[in-house]
């Protein structure tokens, strides 16, 4: 339903996971929220049961992978997963690290990728909004 989709995109609660790395993507997301990008309705929550989408920042290792899966299970449907930054999307500089590195796609079904080190603020918000718009279509 169109109106339901509209409501869903007007109140998006994001659970941010800092999986490892420099933490710049998570900080960039905080800046994006307080900026003047014109995209409204996105807030951060610390409770996975209140969340609509999971924003993964940083490189995912063996330890953080388990936590990410645990958090993903707790988020009620419909939900979206967004991979933010080069580390999450492809491993970036840490690609050959020996502590069991994963890309976000290897861990969860990703709805949206935001590439770049560090990704732009508007791109982050736009990706979250679009992911929530299409979340029903993708079945996640």
């Amino acid at each position: 339903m169109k109106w339901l989709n509209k409501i869903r995109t007007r109140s998006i609660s994001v659970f941010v996971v800092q999986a490892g790395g420099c933490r710049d993507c998570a900080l960039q997301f905080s800046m994006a929220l307080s900026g003047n990008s014109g995209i409204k309705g996105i807030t951060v929550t610390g409770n996975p049961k209140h969340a609509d989408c999971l924003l993964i920042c940083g490189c995912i290792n063996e330890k953080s992978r388990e936590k990410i899966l645990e958090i993903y299970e707790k988020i009620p449907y419909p939900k979206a997963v967004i991979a933010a930054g080069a580390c999450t999307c492809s491993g970036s500089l840490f690609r050959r690290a020996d502590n069991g590195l994963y890309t976000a796609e290897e861990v969860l079904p990703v709805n949206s990728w935001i590439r770049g080190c560090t990704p732009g603020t508007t791109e982050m918000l736009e990706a979250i909004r679009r992911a929530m718009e299409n979340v029903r279509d993708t079945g996640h």
Partner: protein
Amino acid sequence: MPKIIWFFAVALSVPVIHIAYNYINSVMPGQSRTYILQPVYRLLKLFEKKDDGDNFLAYFFSAGSCLFALIALYMAVSGFNFLFVVSVLSMMDLLVITGAFSSGEYSGRISAKRSLSRFVIWLFTSMVASASLYKAAGTLKLNEIAHLSWSNGLLMNIPFTLVSLFVVLLMKSNLMHFDFGLSGDETSVFGDALYSPYSGWSLAVIQLAQWIETGVWLKILSVFLPVTKPISYAIVSLLYLAFLLLDRFVSDVDWKTAARLSWGWAAGFSVINYIYLFYF
């Protein structure tokens, strides 16, 4: 007829307060930009979301708590006995706590433990406050108390009781230093987020119940002010909005500190007023 009007006015006033809070908060520098009706959008969105699996108990306890909140609201606007209203609110709180216990999840149990400590404090405060009220007014019926406040200036005898009941409102709304961290929205260490069994539909019903309960406490507090009913309700609502905004500037405390402060400010103040009324 006025009862019905009051019932809907109080039930709608709390979402309006939250919409006003959300608007003021979103225009402040450094805050997330939100829509004016974002609290309502959030509620509608939660109704659309699905709970984990077949969580019948979460549905049962959330629906039960909302029903008790509605009954308490009806009793409060009809001017029933203060203790009756408190007993219905305690049933509501107990249902939420039982729901959290029944989840079988670690965080649900922690949440229930904190709720239980808050429950003991606010129930003790309410009982001592009712004893003071009975001593000062000779009745516990809210409509008679409202009349006495208007004609006899009842507030002069029970100022600390009013403060303690306002602190109960702050405790129930998770505000200031009386926040027990039950909403699960507090910033936490990675992976340690506190959550309860409520999500999606059942969370939306719990949210509704909490709004109605806040309305009940606002209505109870408004009977003590020596002005007409609508004006006193507006004054208490504005005060509540002010504390909602003030909460943004107050640092969080851990739940044990919140419990200690609640014992001091809520239970302690009501006991002080009780002693004052009986011995001076």
